[in-house]
Structures are given as C-alpha cells and as structure tokens.
C-alpha cells in the first residue's frame, strides 16, 4: 500500500460518496477535486455544475476560481447565473451540494459570514454566496471541512446556511439537509431525530480519540465504527495526475494584455 496524505484520504472519501449520473453543485477546493476524481474513476457520467453557470463541465485541470475559462470550454452549456439558482437549484434539479464554512455546529448549521457579532465583527468572512440556498434545496448536502475546535463549535456566531435546524421539514427547504460531514479525522453522519452529527467511520491509523480532540462539541460516536478503506493505488494515481496537471497549468505565466 502506498503512502498518502490526510488531504488525499479526505478527497478520496468524499469522491466515493458520489454515484454515477448524479448532478452535483460543486465548490472550489477539495469538493472540486473530489468531484473530478469521482468523474475520472467510478462515476464518468457525474454532472458537475459550478455556480458561474457551467453545466456538465469536464475540466482537465482543477479551476482556481469558480469561473475559470476551462470550466466554460469543457461544459455541455454555459447559462446565466440567475438561471442556475432559480431554474436548476431552486427547481430541485440538484442531487448533491457541497459546502464548507468557517464554523459548523453539531447539527450541520454553517457560518461563513462573521466571527463575533454581525454589527461589530471580529472577522468579516466572505458571506453566503450560493451556500444558503444550496443548503436548503440540494437533495442532499455533503459538508467537507478540516476539523479543529475553533471551527467545529458548540455555537456558531452566525447561521449563514441551515443544517438540521428545528422546523426544517416545514421550512420550505426542498432538500433533506446535510447527509454527511467529511473531515480529516473521520466521517460523521446525522443521527437520531435531532440529526446530530455522530462519528460513523474512521480512517486507517486515526483513532476516534483524535476526532474527539479535534471537535469542539462532545462528540457522539457510533458503537460500531466503520473504518474507511485507504485510497487505492488507482485512486491515488488519478488524483495525483489531476493535481500535477493543475499545478503545471497554473504555473504557466499570464502575459499582461498590453
């Protein structure tokens, strides 16, 4: 078995959750890597939608921004952004939405708006973007975040996007909310009526105690924990080739348009 990093384990674990043919609303960073890894391995018909308006995009390198030209050039179609949100996301055509945030609570409510108070923030974060309506309307939400006591907190400072909040079934949200939380210390799934995120699988060589230490709420742990299979040689080869292509493409100097 080859050596691999925690980021690679996390990316592979997220990729394995995707089924061929699903329609995914993708964000930049690890979700983008996971979705493209899935598309290049077990799910060749995965449909990737980026909020910039690209539908069915098949990039050969990972985008640095949500609107890189590569996404448009390899898409089935490119549509106006308002159509993506109204006619695709709100209309219920998205199977999986990926989200991350600065803070998450045990019910999968997310904060990407402010640390501190809204009127006098200690840290002003970028804000909602597409997240609020992705959290409401994607059939399922996959949250991908590295765990730390600062980000996995008992109480988030601001609720940007709803997880399993009280009254969700009557709220008008089309989707079922966060179905899984992929971290670097294991995989959490909602449990019981409250939908509290509970450790349900660990990675090889990372004990549940490490997850307990990294998570800022008293972590519930399933009595029978799964252990994720380590990344296969084939998964690692495809992921590393994708990342090498991406690094090479982003190293190419851009000439000033003068």
């Amino acid at each position: 078995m080859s050596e691999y990093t925690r980021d690679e384990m996390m990316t592979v674990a997220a990729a394995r959750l995707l089924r061929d043919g699903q329609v995914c609303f993708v964000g930049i960073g690890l979700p983008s890597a996971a979705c493209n890894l899935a598309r290049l391995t077990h799910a060749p018909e995965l449909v990737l939608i980026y909020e910039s308006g690209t539908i069915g995009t098949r990039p050969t390198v990972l985008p640095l921004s949500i609107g890189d030209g590569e996404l448009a050039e390899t898409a089935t179609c490119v549509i106006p952004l308002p159509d993506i949100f109204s006619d695709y996301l709100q209309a219920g055509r998205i199977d999986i939405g990926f989200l991350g945030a600065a803070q998450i609570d045990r019910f999968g409510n997310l904060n990407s708006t402010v640390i501190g108070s809204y009127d006098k923030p200690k840290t002003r974060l970028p804000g909602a973007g597409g997240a609020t309506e992705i959290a409401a309307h994607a059939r399922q939400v996959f949250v991908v975040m590295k765990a730390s006591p600062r980000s996995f907190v008992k109480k988030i400072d601001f609720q940007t996007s709803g997880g399993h909040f009280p009254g969700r079934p009557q709220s008008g949200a089309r989707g079922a909310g966060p179905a899984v939380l992929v971290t670097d210390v294991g995989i959490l799934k909602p449990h019981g009526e409250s939908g509290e995120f509970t450790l349900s699988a660990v990675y090889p060589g990372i004990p549940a105690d490490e997850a307990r230490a990294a998570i800022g709420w008293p972590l519930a742990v399933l009595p029978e924990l799964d252990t994720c299979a380590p990344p296969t040689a084939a998964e690692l080869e495809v992921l590393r080739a994708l990342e090498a292509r991406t690094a090479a493409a982003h190293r190419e100097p851009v000439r000033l348009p003068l």
Partner: protein
Amino acid sequence: MTEFLPLKDAIAKHVADGDCLALEGFTHLIPFAAGHELIRQGRKDLHLARMTPDLVYDQLIGVGAARKLTFSWGGNPGVGSLHRLRDAVENGWPCALEIDEHSHAAMAVGYRAGAARLPFGMLRGYIGTDLPARNPRIRHVTCPYTGENIATVPAVNPDVTILHAQRADRHGNVAIDGIVGAAREAALAAAKLLVTVEQIVDELPPAMNNIVLPAFTVTAVSQVPGGAWPSYAHGHYARDNDFYLRWDAIARDRGGFTAWIDRHVRATRDHRGFLASLREAA
C-alpha cells in the same frame, strides 16, 4: 444612439458622485479599467452593487469611494479575504461602509426584477439563515394562489451598470462570450449602461442564442483592450491567477495598498498606462 467615447469621457459624462453603480461580470469580464478610471476621477459616495465585490471593489472601497455595498459573496476567489473590504467593515477605514448583504440566489432575482422593472424579486430562499434578521430589506410575501410564504428582495436598479465585453459593432450592439454571470440582468436593470470592449468590429459573429445587448440598451461603448485584467476575457487573455494571489499581500496593509493605487492607478493616464506601469514594476 450609442455613443462611442474614450473611457475617461464616458465616466466623466455618465457617472456622478452618489450614484448607485453595478460593475458586473462573474469572475470573467470584470470591468477593472472602468473601476480604475472611477478612482482617477475621484468619484465618491458611491453605492456599489455587485454579487462578488472581487478586487475591483476592494480597490474602490480602499480609496474611500463607497458609502454602501450591496453584495452576496465578498472574498478573493480561490485565495481568501478582501482585506480592504474587511478593514472598512471591521474598522471603518477609510470610511464607514453600509452593508446590504444577500445570498447569490437573492441578488440574482433582485437584478432580474430590476431588469423587468418590477418592484421586487422573489425566491424560495433565506431558509434556515440569520440573514433576514440582519437585513431589513429581506422580506416575505404570501402567495395569493397557494398561501406559501415566499422571500423577497427589492429590485436592484443601478443608476449606471458597467460591463466589459469581447466586442461591439459600429452600431453599438455588444456581444459577450463565455461565462456571463448576471451581466445581462444587471445591464438591463440600469438607467445607463456603459460597456468597455476588447474590439470594435464591422459585424458581430452570428450569435442566434448568444448573449447580445442590442445597441438601443447601450448608452456608451469604450474600446479598452485588456480592460478586464486581472480577470479575463475569454478568447483574448486568461485570468491572471498569480495577480489574485499577489493582491492578498498588496491589500493586506493600508500603506502598501495606497502606494500601489497611487503608483499604478492615480499616476497613470489610462488603462494602457496602468498595464505599462505594472510591466515596468515586474
């Protein structure tokens, strides 16, 4: 009749202090040259609307040109924070900035309503979020047919929308290829539409289903090659991802930011001079 003006004259004639401006373009075709010209001419008290403020509004906010910001995601894409936006919100530097904050889905329907001259846009949105509690402009209506509670946002109707596009023809019809974001809606929502273009051509390529803004919707066209840099113009030049990374260091510090603006924007005559000054500095 669409006017053909140098950018300097288009801004001088059509943008006033206190205006509500939307410089749109989602990652692609962001009208940076126009943003810099606003800084050179010292426009102030602006109400800036844009889904993703990006570097172009970080610069306008950092020089104190804005009193209010309507937006839905205020980061440096793929990099991190917009430090000038943060400094304005967290510390009121260089002046206080009123925040009118939305989600992308809501701001998109705000532009759509603006383009259609409806008073508000509606969406099944703002569910499970604290945003409506912090922004009194986010409200709800009861559907007269089903009784459903639907979120609303006021129409966004800028005094002036400014876009960058690949090309215009000599009549003033403007064609955009590639990622369009909410450019079309923001264009039609505005009282005046200024467009900077890479090229002015005799005839636009056939584009039955492409995004074209017909000349009668376009107030003025200014040819500004490279006018979207450091964002990109599909088919002309790529996004300068490296500059987006470098901006993080330039904008982190008030002094460093001001020195950069003085040297590359205020001390240059136009966009050509701006790009030349960057090449000299490289």
